[in-house]
């Protein structure tokens, strides 16, 4: 995103809308810091500029800067997945896809969330360690397309420095590997330059209980009660 210097009247209306704090006043006009801008498009969409001075410049859609938009603008569709947003269908359709089966745990580490942002190279703090442990990253997740080779967890050279609102490291592990993998994630938390929101997907048992919660609490995690629950309305229903 950019702001036409000759149009801006310096009203500052756009400044508070930027999640990355990338807009500031310079010599009486608003300027967007191109390093910090993640191309989310909020400043343009909220239409608070009284003179339409904000615009999407050509570079926003050119590689490698274009990855900023696909990982930050919720309305942008990923070419590789055809799905809008940064992630996958995950728990949303698990009753039909059975992507996360009993005995397995889905893990999502959303780097940059909430509202801090991340350079794509920052995910390597965990992806390289996970790859060494043989973890296979979710093939439908847009981030997986940006590894030089998913078996190394290394991000492509041309996009490493690109900043995005968030990028999700997503994978499935068997329950017996939970202690080992979670310990790697906790180690990564001490080394990262940003924040990450840590999410899991697990199955209910036939009695409507979530056995994983007890296990996590025994491991020392405080498990918030706010959860995203697939209520089993999808058809055809897959139970395995």
């Amino acid at each position, binding site marked *: 995103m950019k702001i036409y210097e000759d149009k801006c009247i310096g009203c500052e209306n756009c400044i*508070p*809308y*930027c*999640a990355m*704090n990338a807009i500031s006043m310079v010599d009486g006009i608003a300027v967007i810091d191109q390093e910090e801008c993640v191309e*989310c498009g*909020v400043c343009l*969409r909220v239409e608070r500029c009284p003179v339409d001075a904000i615009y999407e410049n050509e570079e926003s859609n050119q590689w490698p800067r274009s990855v900023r938009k696909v990982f930050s603008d*919720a*309305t942008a569709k990923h070419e590789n997945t*055809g799905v*809008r947003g*940064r*992630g996958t269908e*995950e*728990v*949303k*359709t*698990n*009753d*039909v*896809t059975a992507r*996360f089966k009993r005995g397995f745990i*889905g893990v999502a580490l959303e780097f940059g*969330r*909430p*509202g*801090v942002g991340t350079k794509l190279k920052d995910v390597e703090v965990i992806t390289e360690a996970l790859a060494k442990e043989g973890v296979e990253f979710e093939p439908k*997740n847009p981030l997986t397309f940006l590894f030089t080779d998913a078996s190394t967890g290394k991000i492509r050279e041309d996009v490493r420095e690109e900043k995005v609102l*968030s990028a999700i490291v*997503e994978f499935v592990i068997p329950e017996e590997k939970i202690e080992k993998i979670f310990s790697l994630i*906790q180690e990564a938390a001490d080394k*990262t*330059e*940003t*924040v*990450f*929101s*840590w*999410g*899991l*997907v*697990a*199955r*209910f048992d036939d009695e409507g209980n*979530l056995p994983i919660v007890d296990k*996590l609490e025994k491991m020392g995690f*405080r*498990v*918030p*009660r*706010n*959860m*995203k*629950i*697939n*209520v*089993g*309305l*999808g058809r055809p229903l897959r139970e395995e």
Partner: protein
Amino acid sequence: MTHSLHRIGSSDNKQGDYVFISRPAMGINHEGCAPRIRRSLQIIFEVGPTNLGSLTTKENMALGLNPEEMISKMEDNSPIMCCFHDREKIKEVLTRLKEEDLGLSVVVTGEMEDVVELCREVGLKPHSAGISLGIYGKTELLPEEDVLCFTTMCGHAMVSAGIVKQMKESVKKGIMSSEEAANILSAPCLCGIFNNVKAQKMLDEECEK
């Protein structure tokens, strides 16, 4: 993977906050399902969501979304995203969707015990759960929790800390009502899962402090 999952706040202020997301599974049951998406939306609008949005049409209720127009533009892969502050309303939606057996997957985000009880009342069997383990790393980069309670209602981080702080200030100074401020805050969240009624309640509570 975590669109509505990591909502920050005490259990108290999460009451009256239910996020509803429904979609087909791409490549499995999405082909030709636009009529079922439209029917689900008709049911939701008849019941009355707190907020609802669409990334397909890039609008939400705060931006003046027209339900009929929006419904007509739904495609086979369009997700349905909305929120409710009234438990009875989301219960009615789930009940009617179960009766019509439209076959789209549905997730409800809320307090686990409450959502499981909702499922029991409606006759549904909860299948899987997305669980948040919280925020890790350089948490000193985050704004205060009383700001995160607002910003995290948009899972895509379209609602900035800056506009939350400005709206709080405006309501405190009497420049605008909490309802107006909540609507301004909900506008950037095109998915429509920003619960403006909850936001209004939190703004009012701050003014009373």
